[in-house]
């Protein structure tokens, strides 16, 4: 497990921070349970106008089409929309997965 951050000074509303925390937790748990990953990188990166939280694993990955039909994932995306954040997923079979949560600042 690796962690990188350049966003120590970013201040978030308590609600937002809590939702982001939950989302990251869920994604990590999922990577450990289902992705068969043995390495996870979590990065909290501040860029111009956005905060990007990415969780990258080296696990089995999955087909993007299957992903669109996954209900837990939709639930996660909806909750993120609620705090004005988006979820971007980059994955292909056997090529690991990168989940990026993008929150406008």
């Amino acid at each position: 497990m690796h962690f990188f951050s350049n966003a120590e000074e970013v201040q978030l509303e308590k609600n937002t921070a809590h939702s982001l925390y939950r989302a990251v937790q869920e994604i990590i748990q999922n990577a450990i349970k289902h992705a068969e990953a043995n390495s996870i990188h979590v990065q909290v990166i501040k860029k111009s106008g956005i905060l990007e939280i990415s969780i990258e694993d080296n696990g089995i990955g999955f087909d993007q089409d299957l992903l669109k039909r996954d209900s837990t994932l939709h639930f996660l995306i909806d909750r993120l929309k609620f705090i004005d954040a988006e979820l971007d997923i980059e994955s292909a079979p056997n090529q690991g997965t990168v989940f990026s949560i993008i929150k406008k600042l």
Partner: protein
Amino acid sequence: MNILIADDHHLVLEGLTNVLETMENVEIFQAKNKNLLLYQLRSHKIDILFQDILFGDYNAREFIKEIIKEFPSLKIIIISSISDLEVVDSLFKQGVHGYLLKSDDLSEISSSIATVMNDQIYISTEIRDLTYREKRLDIKSTVVLTPREKEVLRLILKEKTTNEIGENLNVSTKTVEKHRANLFIKFGVKNVVGLVKKAIMEGYS
């Protein structure tokens, strides 16, 4: 003990002479240019040479080896305002025995003499601090990359365009740009040129 001061600046020459003259059993010689330097070295049995780097028309880095070859028992202490570690390093590699900065405390002069006469190397405290700081920076700048970032970096180093990288990794150009932006942040650079430079320095290639 015979000490030769080689500096083309009158004030430095006189200032250093004044300081050294307060020491016991010391005779001071001076040289303002390379011809005088060689003349003094050949005419007297000089024990220690305080040598400036930018010395009139000459750069001591170019002739220090010749001097060491002709006077193998001579102790050479560089005294310069240059604190660039590359310069310091190259002079030690050529075989000088000490390195002082013109901004150093006067007490460093007597310490350096005692140290080199004892067959040891003397490095100015300020330079030692600099080396330490640079080493710490090195440790801090060791960047840990995610597998995706490594892939993107590898392709950037192969001079691939954003489009080509996207096709190669089967992701959108937007995604490539995202990873690239993260690489910039992690390496602390502003553009691809900086990224490539830093990455090669860090051993990626």
